[in-house]
């Protein structure tokens, strides 16, 4: 198990290095000129002299490789430069917004798991019945509705109509309900459907039949042989959903005036505030990679071949 975790950890630095190169090169070779955007956001008229000054100040007159290494070296020490728009260090500013986004995406993940697992198991237990059809219906709808539109619908019903939930802002648990629900719908639907399918598959397998034949009580058969095996694909899928949940949070934040990185990043992208865009992309990637590491560990723990050190090829 330890060897497995160490192997996964060793993969992370080269991947992040690759992403940093991608982020740096695409932005530099992309459509815009950072010096021009810097002057625009500083509200300085872009004369030739001002452009040359800005290039020298931002280090854009050096060879690309030198610029990259310099940027990477600073980034490794947490220095992503100053935002062109706010003139404040980018990383502290971004990290100030990040907890709100993580709170939202994390809640959405928890809600997704808390609802999808019982729903999927319920559907599998009543295969072909109305319960099954209901859950499958929810799952089909859940992957088709745009999360930002669901957010609006929830506000119409629960804030405008019933007046139960606050339509904007962050603070209490009540503020979390609507944005988290809107974001988690996709992951919830996929997980419920996946658990249903994999439980039905596991329930029909020979090792479960054997467990029953041995006379194990039904509860133990379900717990040890059906649910545990059926969870494996759900765990894998959840790793992929983390990206989707983070993306959902970025979109939905603008609707609920949620003070997360979403609005900060969107305005930076609109303004072409390069240091913020670079930092945002890398920080979100690190979050994503760490979440996937956690998922891999959970996956290894569920799979005895890995947990006991006999890694499957």
């Amino acid at each position, binding site marked *: 198990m330890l060897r497995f975790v160490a192997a996964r950890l060793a993969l992370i630095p080269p991947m992040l290095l690759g992403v940093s190169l991608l982020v740096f090169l695409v932005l530099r070779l992309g459509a815009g000129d950072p010096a021009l955007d810097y002057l625009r956001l500083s509200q300085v008229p872009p004369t030739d002299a001002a452009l040359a000054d800005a290039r020298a100040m931002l280090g854009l007159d050096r060879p690309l490789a030198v610029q990259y290494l310099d940027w990477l070296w600073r980034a490794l020490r947490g220095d992503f430069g100053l935002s062109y728009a706010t003139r404040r260090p980018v990383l502290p500013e971004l990290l100030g917004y990040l907890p709100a986004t993580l709170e939202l995406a994390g809640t959405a993940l928890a809600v997704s798991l808390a609802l999808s697992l019982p729903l999927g198991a319920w559907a599998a237990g009543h295969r072909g019945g109305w319960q099954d059809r209901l859950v499958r219906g929810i799952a089909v709808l859940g992957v088709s509705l745009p999360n930002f539109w669901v957010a609006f619908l929830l506000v119409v019903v629960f804030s405008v109509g019933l007046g139960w939930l606050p339509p904007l802002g962050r603070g209490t648990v009540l503020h979390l309900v609507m944005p988290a629900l809107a974001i988690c719908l996709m992951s919830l639907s996929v997980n419920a459907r996946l658990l249903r399918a994999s439980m039905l598959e596991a329930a029909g397998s020979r090792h479960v039949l054997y467990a029953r034949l041995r006379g194990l009580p039904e509860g133990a058969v379900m717990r040890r042989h059906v649910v545990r095996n059926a969870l494996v694909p759900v765990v894998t899928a959840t790793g992929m959903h983390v990206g989707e949940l983070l993306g959902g949070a970025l979109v939905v934040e603008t609707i609920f005036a949620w003070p997360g990185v979403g609005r900060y990043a969107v305005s930076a992208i609109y303004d072409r505030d*390069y240091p913020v865009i670079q930092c945002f992309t890398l920080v979100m990637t690190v979050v994503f990679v760490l979440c996937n590491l956690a998922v891999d560990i959970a996956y290894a723990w569920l799979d005895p071949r890995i947990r006991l050190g006999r890694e499957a090829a």
Partner: protein
Amino acid sequence: MTPAGAPARSRSVAIAGLLAAGFVLLALLGSLVVPHDPLAVDLAHRFEAPTLAHLLGTDHLGRDILSRLIAGARTTLGSVLVVLALVLALGLSVGGLSGMLGGRIDAVLMRLCDVFLTVPTFVLALFMIGALGTGLVNVVAAIVLSHWAWYARIVRGLVLELKTRDYVLAARIAGAPRLAIFVEHVLPGVVPPLAALATLDIGHMALHVAGLSFLGLGVQPPTPEWGVMINDARAFFWTRPLLVIWPGLAIALAVLAFNRLGDALRDRLDPTLVAGRGL
């Protein structure tokens, strides 16, 4: 599936197929059937309730909502189809090269894919828009660049599996060139599961296009696009929720239809391949 569920299932697939075909027709021929000019501003008739002249009413600039929805089908679905064509082309060429040639080229291409797959898809799309700028063409490019690696990976996996089949080995022994083997013997096995995956992804990508436009980063107003329409209607949402509801319903119906179709295709062609992706 239980036998009892089968007729209902095929009926829902047929409905989804008709709906999807309808949306594609609207995207292609919509300009022939729009009741009004989707860009015509008429401030004297803003926020009109549905009437016979304006079946779904008018928006904050007095534009006919139904006409904008029909024109939006072309923007949203048209851009998704372009995205899909480009992603398939990139995925097939990179994945095909990687799988057929193997060795160092395979290693380099796959590390490149790894880098693209390390960044969350939506964040990568946002980043690409940051680098390329906003607008319809750049949104298409951003979504292609954030999705191609998935396809390259899947194509490579399929190619590697098909390469070991006896008929491919026979063709190699017969001395057929690698390109001919790929086109004649491997490609036919790659296309069906890829078609299922692509159909399933139409909905997913439509949600991305609409989401980016909703954030104001994609298609720019006044171009009629479903996400743009929702963004336009936001300011009036408390008093006129219907303005948000119509375009969202259009997105939901289109995504629902293509998802259902993709599911059906996947079930027929290969139930194991796409399941792991989960989305």
